[in-house]
């Protein structure tokens, strides 16, 4: 699964740590999702969508 997390974070000038704090996860989690090494669960994907105020499909796309 592809995602636009890194781009969206850069647009907001957020650090990985800041996003991790907003999502209440570790910085490793944000890094793993951004680099495509880990696909988040549906609840975490919804949380990410809420943080960016976007729909899930605007952030995550099929390969």
């Amino acid at each position, binding site marked *: 699964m592809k995602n636009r997390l890194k781009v969206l974070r850069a647009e907001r000038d957020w650090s990985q*740590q800041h996003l991790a704090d907003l999502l209440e996860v*570790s910085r*490793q989690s944000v890094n793993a999702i951004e*680099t495509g090494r880990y696909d988040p669960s549906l609840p*975490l994907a919804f949380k990410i969508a809420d943080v960016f105020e976007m729909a899930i499909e605007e952030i995550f796309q099929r390969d």
Partner: protein
Amino acid sequence: MSTEAKRGFTRTVPFWAGLAFGTFGAVMGLALSDAINAATALILMIVPAGLFFQTMRVANTTAACSGRGEAQRLYVKRVAIFASTYLVVIALQVSLLGGDETTEASLAARAALSVMPGLAICGIFWAIGRLILDEKDEFIRMLIVRQTLIATGFALGFATIWGFLEAGEVVPHIPAYWFAVAFFGGQFIGAVSNRITHGSWGAL
């Protein structure tokens, strides 16, 4: 923690890992060559275990940069308690039962003293299970489960292969508690695997 300090930690991960594996290999070598007896080997295993613990601690500090979660803090506390208990009861067992020598202690006393080190190690297994239950971060939890599965597979594989080699009289007999040592060695392999595949060492 300063950026410079973090860089310093990054450089020290291979150092601690090498030291942990080196001492593990040395103790295993001494034990298998009968240079030291089983009780001494078990006590000496605290050294690589401690170094492994330090490797994981440094690796986490380096990789996370996000602070340790409550679940991980509790885990470290529990492991420290059970590892200390292990040290105390193994010393008690060796001093009261006299190591490999036959003593006049009753069967009940020998059973009680002999089961205690095993129970202390079981406490560490329990701490790993509790960490999996307590960890709120799903990615970290996945890494712990993955690491533990690799360690379990490694220990079971080691036990099975060694057992058949032993039956074929290719290798000497070893006490079964060495498979727990293999499990902890497998945790290290699991952590390295996590680092390679997911970019993080995990939390154990």
